[in-house]
């Protein structure tokens, strides 16, 4: 099973100067059970591609297909329900600064029909895995940039998503935390999750950790060595 982009085009950044669409007939396949790295220069549309793949935006043309489901063609209600299988970490983090770490991690679980204790256990487990133990009651705005980024990653992973979309997930991390995060993403892929990492962090490109790679440039996605 895979998450597929077929002729995916997004033109809302098109300018009067005649510049082309941000994404131009992008094709790509992202396997479940594998971590795929998408690289590319700043402004090439990596974040937008993740937003389209997560059903957060609708493409101008083309489609995003999950297995056999053309999710980008679905109505809002259907995509809302499908999105429950997605966990996303934004490049800009998009945390609510006054919420505590625990409340931030509870946020994705509230609509999932779970009891408080189960949600607390999952939140504490995620905080522990992301090296945030002991910070559960601290408001997010009081954390360092690296800690805030790990909170955003924990929020994306806390409900065990089937698709994990990570936008520059190691940008604010030191080498040790970056390595531990990569290990965590690998374990998720080993558990059958479709992991898509968008990054131009050289630490992720080194060592052949991600054999499945795409390069996004000039609005086109190409397999990268």
């Amino acid at each position, binding site marked *: 099973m895979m998450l597929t982009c077929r002729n995916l085009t997004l033109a809302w950044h098109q300018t009067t100067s005649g510049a082309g669409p941000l994404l131009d007939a992008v094709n790509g396949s992202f396997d479940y059970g594998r971590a795929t790295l998408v690289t590319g220069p700043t402004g090439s549309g990596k974040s937008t591609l993740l*937003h389209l793949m*997560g059903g*957060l*935006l*609708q493409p101008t043309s083309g489609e995003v297909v999950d297995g056999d489901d053309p999710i980008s063609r679905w109505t*809002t*209600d259907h995509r*809302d*329900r499908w*999105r*429950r299988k*997605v966990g*996303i970490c*934004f490049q800009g983090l*998009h945390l*609510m600064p*006054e*919420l505590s770490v625990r*409340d931030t991690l509870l*946020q*994705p679980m*509230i*609509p*999932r*029909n*779970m*009891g*408080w204790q189960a*949600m607390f256990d999952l939140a504490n487990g995620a905080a522990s895995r992301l090296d945030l133990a002991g910070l559960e009651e601290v408001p997010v705005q009081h954390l360092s940039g690296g800690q805030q980024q790990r909170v955003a990653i924990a*929020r994306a992973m806390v*409900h065990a998503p089937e698709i994990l979309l990570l936008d520059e997930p190691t940008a604010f991390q030191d080498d040790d935390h970056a390595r531990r995060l990569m290990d965590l993403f690998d374990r998720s892929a080993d558990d059958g999750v479709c992991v898509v990492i968008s990054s131009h962090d050289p630490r992720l490109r080194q060592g052949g950790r991600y054999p499945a790679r795409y390069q996004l440039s000039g609005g086109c996605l190409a397999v990268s060595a």
Partner: protein
Amino acid sequence: MRAGPLFQWSGRDLGRHRIKAALVFLALSTLTAMVATVLLLNQAVALTFGRLLDHSPAIIVRQVGGGGWLPLPAEDALSAARAVPGVVQPRIRIWGVVNHGDQAVTIVGLGQQPRGLLPDGFQSPGRGEALIGPGVTTATGEARILLTGQQAVDLFVRGQLPPSAGMAVHDLVLLHVDDARTLLGLRPDQASDLAVEVFHPEEAESLANVLKQAFPWPVQVTTRSAVRKAYAAHFSARGGAGLLSFMPALLALVLLIVALGAWGLQLEPDMGLMKAMGWTSGDLLRLHLTRAALMGFPAFVAGLMGAWILCVFAPGNWVTRFLFEWSGPPLELSSQGLVVPLALTTVVVFFPYLAANFWSGWRTVQADPMALIQGRAR
């Protein structure tokens, strides 16, 4: 989604935006109080006035001339009324309005057999004596009352009627019929008016026309039902004018809508983010409405309680005087009479508040998450 987490999360959200929540609470409760006060008072005035009328005669006959009311020839009037079939218990009344210091009081002259006005344990006042209603004041320590009409009469206050004696006695002074005639300038063969009852109450209107023809002089005949209709129209008009005088309420409504709109705009990125986290449009709409209800329902109840306090406990009935020019006894509210004002206030204030929240929430949750997060949803 389970109700417990939904309520808790809604409460936390309100806590995160506590100043804006407090502003909306204040605006909604003020608006509720203003609307409910007018509606409750309208109901209370109608009820109180209706109960006062219940104690009045079915038909009243007064002689009129070019200058207004004239004293009625008592015996001739009684004979003419008795001759009309369907008329029962015709009786002359000696009453009028005189001054007591700065206060205007209604005096009623009582004969040997006073009808219904005296509660148990009270004797009809003799000459030079008076019984005063609970709304009539005397100087501290004084047991006398000086009334001024056509002449001044100084009376010994033999007792004060208790409030439980009925609303009709509130500003009343009961005195001997001869003292009343002296105060009003009536001769012994004259009366203020003639009161009659009717055998069939539904015939009162038609009997009024017959009575008008039965007297050899011009008379004005007034039925209880006509008075009831006239005052109902008057109080409705006053209530409408009172509602208009509450223009600040409209301003509060505008502020409320603006606050809701601005708050909704600020919440859009949050809602977009929650959508991205897996909240469905339905989940977010439920959250939005739960948040609105958690804030709006207590504000609505607080507004109703404020209206109740203004209606029942406002010192000196100033709200009622201002809105309805009411100078009668304290108003009464019945539990049955509360239903209509409460229902109307709910329809006029609370339902539109919920509808506005539903509309703003529904419009918001239809958008794509990134459009909300980036503020491009509108």
